[in-house]
């Protein structure tokens, strides 16, 4: 593997149990800065649970999830941070976040991890613009002097609000929804709602964007637009992407690195090409017994 790639996310021995059910068992993988990392696997493999652990919605039963801002050298401090019980550490070169210890909203606010949801969660009764303004809440709260200053018209909140609107406009343009900015989000088509949710996540200025099946329910043209959007985000904004996806055309086309899960365990990890020809992966997707894998591989390559 290329040694120059900077680490951004380091998941170690992640385990999540619900009662007796093991949703994720001892999962370790890494994601690198400026890359699109895809997590794939059959239904029920535990992909969304991994996302919920990374974004703080679930507290993992065991394991460590480290996120790096800036210089990955900060990872050297990880054991100290773990033992001393910090949620995060900042050094002059970068910062280290132990996501498994942080509450969901703090993961977004401080560690700057944004996410979308498998069953889209927009603010349906609010307009597209309002949705993107809500995403800039924390920045605007500071700008409004935690409401107190802006309420009496002090502190130049107006300027910050205009900047926020500009950013929203930028993203609405980018996802092709600028003409509908003042309409309620619930009135959008399914594909447009998916794009809006990505735009909303991007408005939080994330360093890591987690997308839960962004191509689900999209037609081929919309899928290809989505690929372009994700490639654009990776290229133009220093945002790394973690992606759960079933649509293999999207995965193979845009991801730099693929992690395959089955029954909560990692069965393969590598470049798209490597994963595609991995017999374990093929077996998991086709559902064959292990001793038949060889046959399947031969069939596929034939």
């Amino acid at each position, binding site marked *: 593997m290329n040694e120059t790639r900077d680490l951004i996310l380091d998941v170690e021995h992640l385990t999540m149990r619900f009662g007796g059910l093991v949703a994720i068992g001892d999962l370790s993988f890494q994601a690198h800065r400026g890359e699109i990392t895809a997590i794939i696997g059959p239904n029920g493999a535990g992909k969304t649970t991994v996302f919920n652990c990374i974004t703080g919605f679930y507290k993992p039963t065991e394991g460590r999830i480290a996120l790096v801002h800036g210089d990955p050298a900060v990872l050297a401090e990880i054991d100290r941070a773990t033992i001393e019980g910090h949620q995060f550490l900042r050094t002059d070169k970068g910062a280290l976040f132990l996501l498994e210890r942080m509450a969901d*909203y703090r993961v977004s606010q401080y560690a700057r991890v944004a996410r979308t949801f498998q069953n889209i969660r*927009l603010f349906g009764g*609010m*307009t597209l613009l*309002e949705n993107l303004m809500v*995403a800039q*809440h924390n920045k605007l709260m500071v700008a409004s002097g935690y409401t107190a200053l802006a*309420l009496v018209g002090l502190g130049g909140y107006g300027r910050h609000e205009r900047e926020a609107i500009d950013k929203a406009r930028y993203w609405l343009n980018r996802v092709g929804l600028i003409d509908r900015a003042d309409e*309620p989000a619930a*009135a959008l088509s399914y594909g447009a709602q998916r794009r809006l949710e990505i735009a909303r996540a991007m408005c939080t200025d994330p360093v890591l964007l987690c997308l839960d099946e962004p191509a689900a329910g999209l037609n081929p043209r919309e899928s290809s637009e989505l690929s372009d959007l994700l490639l654009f985000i990776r290229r133009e904004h220093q945002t790394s992407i973690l992606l759960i996806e079933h649509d293999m055309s999207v995965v193979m086309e845009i991801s730099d690195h693929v992690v395959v899960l089955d029954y909560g365990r990692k069965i393969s990890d590598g470049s798209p090409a490597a994963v595609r020809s991995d017999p374990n992966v093929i077996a998991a997707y086709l559902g064959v017994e292990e001793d038949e894998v060889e046959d399947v591989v031969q069939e596929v390559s034939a």
Partner: protein
Amino acid sequence: MATDDAVSARTEPSPVVAALRDAAMWGLITLLLTGPVVGLGTVASSGTYGFIQRWPLVFSMTAIAFAVRFILMMTVWRRRGAPAPRKVVADLPKSLDSLRKLFIPVFVLLAFAYPFISVFVAGGMTPGRYWIDLGVLVLTYILLGWGLNIVVGLAGLLDLGYVAFYAVGAYTFALLSMNYDLSFWVCLPIAGIIAAMFGVLLGFPVLRLRGDYLAIVTLAFGEIIRLVLINWREFTGGASGINRIPRPSFFGFEFVPSGPTSFAQFFGITHSPVHRLIFFYYVTLLLAFVVLIITIRLRRLPIGRAWEALREDEIACRSLGISVVNTKLTAFSLGAMFGGFAGTVFAARQGYISPQDFTFLTSALVLAIVVLGGLGSNLGVVFSAAVLVGGVEMLRNLGFLKQIFGNDFDPTTYRMLIFGVLMVVIMVWRPRGLISSRSPSVFLTERKTVSAAMVHEGRG
């Protein structure tokens, strides 16, 4: 086609027969329901009970039920058959929506001129008193409605114990002014802050609760406050409450007939006790406008948008870095503060308060005002407060009904009955309230109102 008609003709009776059958059923039900309870009124007589028999009333109620049902079946419900559960929420009549801009200045003007109009129309200070008093009452409920609107309408947290904050405000003012001789204007912010603290106190434990659990805990909280007020006699005066609460003064001038600080003497007008009431009206109005302006401004600030986002989807809020704890607590405490203001005004106007003023019925009334007006709509609160508080209060004046129903008929005893029926009827007619569409807090090119069908409900 012909066979279809034949089939339906054979299986379905004619509309008149169907309507008669339905009306007869409801007539019978009415007879069964009212017969024992209305027909036989128990009255204590010499250690046991005797009956007042009211069979004519029962039969007329039965006849009315029959007639109403029959007429409805033959007219309004003819096409639809039976009244079907409504699935789609109708939007506000367009006319009302477009008139909204015109309404507001008219309202403001009317609100300011109201005491003078009352005095003028009623023909003098003393006859106008009733109307001004009613105006203050309606304004107090508008104030309460706007406060609760933040909690229920914007943040979507169902609060059935809002009266607790109203009580806290009233008692804070009463106790401070009685025990420490503090003036109304000093007490007002203190009462607001203390009520807000109670809001946080209530907010913390219920943060994790949703929906109806939240509703019942807030209801219990309201009852706890009331019970403490009744039973902590040394502090609150118990069930008899607090009397002779000092009246506020007008920049140091008191509303007394004469003396160096007399309002009437200073301005060279004849003293009238109504002056104080008019003053109160403007104090309440001023407070209402302050609350309104704060609410409108807050809605356009990040905190207001966060409240609405919370109502729409709490999980999405968390994914965007919004602290649900802070957002809910600010909504609770702000709503409570406005309730505290209203309580202060109430105590000062009334001059005496008792736990009897702060029963669940008040919470229900304020919630009804907010929901009937349309969740989140400030204008809707004004409408429904006027109808529910003003309209129902005016039933007291329906003395002429005595001439129809005889002297035993006292319309005021039916006040709450009509109020209850109104609540049910308006909900069946417009479940989303009068003004159900939502106006966006920010816009790029054009402010388009959002239809009620898109907006999530207050859920908690």
